[in-house]
């Protein structure tokens, strides 16, 4: 047991401590890559860094939109897969494929699919006489293309988690509700969603943490462009470390991103705790 827990500490806790220390240092080419204590200067710089705020906003926008969309679509897919359909196993396998592929592989694929004007979507649009869309070249649109690609890839994961939750709900609850004259929408709202809420919470926590750390997808699909409109905090931290060789500031950015995630995850848990008694309504 001890070696495993030590390794966990070394991989997860130690880096965060190192960042906390590094964020009080200047370690750049100017200091000949030797750390020099600068107090809270990096944090002051962060607060005044417009690029940081822009990236924080963009990361949040991406995270909230893609996780929200994945929840809705994932629930739809889970409800579909929970029905006794023919070929359900095959359907589940097929819908799982996007999740299993490496992000960089499919990000490259999406670059071609989103191509303007030769990608399939734009060919289709042109076919029916609509103007083509610059999916990857328009700051107002490109972040949505990224949400699209992310949703395609991770909806299966959310769907599977929710499907596991759906399968724990006893069927007689629905029968009883039907006897009382509840329609499908009512039983979804009154039975499915409340009983599914712990699974929804787990899916949100997992997905939110990963989506706010989005890196692979941005780097390969858009490289942060156009005009920095899709750059994420993780990519900015990466650029600071690997291109500007500004390690102190990179560590500060990572910590800031981490704090943002903690804040949002905490918010999600709080929301769940607050809404639970209202939903449970004496059932459990």
């Amino acid at each position, binding site marked *: 047991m001890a070696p495993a827990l030590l*390794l966990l500490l070394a991989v997860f806790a130690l*880096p965060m401590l190192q960042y906390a220390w590094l964020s009080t240092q200047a370690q750049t080419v100017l200091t000949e890559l030797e750390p020099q204590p600068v107090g809270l200067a990096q944090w002051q710089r962060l607060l005044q860094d417009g690029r940081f705020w822009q990236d924080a906003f963009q990361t949040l926008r991406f995270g909230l939109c893609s996780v929200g969309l994945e929840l809705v679509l994932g629930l739809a*897919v889970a409800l579909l897969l929970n029905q006794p359909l023919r070929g359900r196993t095959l359907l589940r396998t*097929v819908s799982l494929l996007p999740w299993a*592929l490496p*992000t960089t*592989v499919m990000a490259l*694929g999406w670059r071609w699919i989103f191509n303007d004007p030769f990608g399939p979507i734009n060919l289709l649009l042109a076919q029916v006489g609509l103007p083509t869309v610059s999916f990857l070249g328009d700051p107002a649109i490109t972040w949505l293309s990224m949400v699209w690609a992310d949703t395609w890839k991770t909806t299966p994961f959310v769907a599977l988690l929710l499907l596991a939750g759906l399968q724990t709900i006893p069927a007689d609850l629905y029968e009883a509700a039907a006897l009382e004259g509840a329609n499908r929408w009512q039983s979804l709202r009154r039975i499915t969603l409340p009983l599914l809420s712990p699974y929804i919470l*787990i899916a949100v926590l997992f997905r939110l943490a990963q989506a706010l750390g989005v890196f692979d997808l941005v780097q*390969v699909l858009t490289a942060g462009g156009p005009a920095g409109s899709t750059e994420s905090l993780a990519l900015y931290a990466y650029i600071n470390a690997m291109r500007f060789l500004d390690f102190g500031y990179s560590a500060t950015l990572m910590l800031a991103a981490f704090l943002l995630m903690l804040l949002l995850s905490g918010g999600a848990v709080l929301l769940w705790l607050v809404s639970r008694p209202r939903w449970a309504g004496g059932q459990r």
Partner: protein
Amino acid sequence: MNRLLLILWSLGPMLWQLYTSFRPNATLTGNPMQGGWTLEHYQALLGGNPPFWRYLLNSGVVGLSSTLLTLVVAVPCAYGLSRLGRKTARNVNVLVAIAAAFPYVLLFLALLQLARDLHLGNNLLALSLPYTGLSLPLAILLLQASFRDIPPELEEAARLEGLGLWQRLRWVLLPLMAPAIASASLLIFLFCWNEYPIALTWLSRADLLTLAPAMARIAGSSVFTVPYGGFAAATVLGSIPLIVLVLVFQRQIVSGLTQGAIKG
């Protein structure tokens, strides 16, 4: 109808890549119905330097070694945790679950410094070390849940027969845990196969790249010309091993994912 939509949504992008990969580059900017077929993109990739299968091989090596190492470390840990009191185990598990959900991309800078200090860069087997650390949380949660499902009487009986701890593990517990071990192994392997930021920073030699950074390098190699036929062929070759894996082990992967969520 819904089913058809789901299949189309899931497979459409992949089928388009497959189709593109067999088309000469010159036809990609024209009518998709015209023009011939070609194998030139695959020939170029497989005859490249290094040849594309090299990346697949590298990913396979890292994936296998990391999976093995993770199991070796995680099994005893999961066993130990499963024999702790409920309350202590619960507290430890909350921390482990947080680590499992941790956006590990944030760790790359610290891990990179580790690689520099210990000279672990450009070494596929050394890359298994961070991968093992990152895969451990999920493995511990999955295996621990499965250890708990085994009735304690069974182990007790084996002990009364005079079997030592390792013998009990080897002959009694592990065989019963085969399904959980299979699920955990597959998920770990998938993670390592797909991992990008750490591979990107730990590996720089072209012939040692794993699939994910190799794809990114291919994507970045041509800013001005856009050889989408070659890109598509690379995505197809990069996807095939995983598609086979998912088709064969679908059941284990799904049970691993859902068990991890329910018990974790």
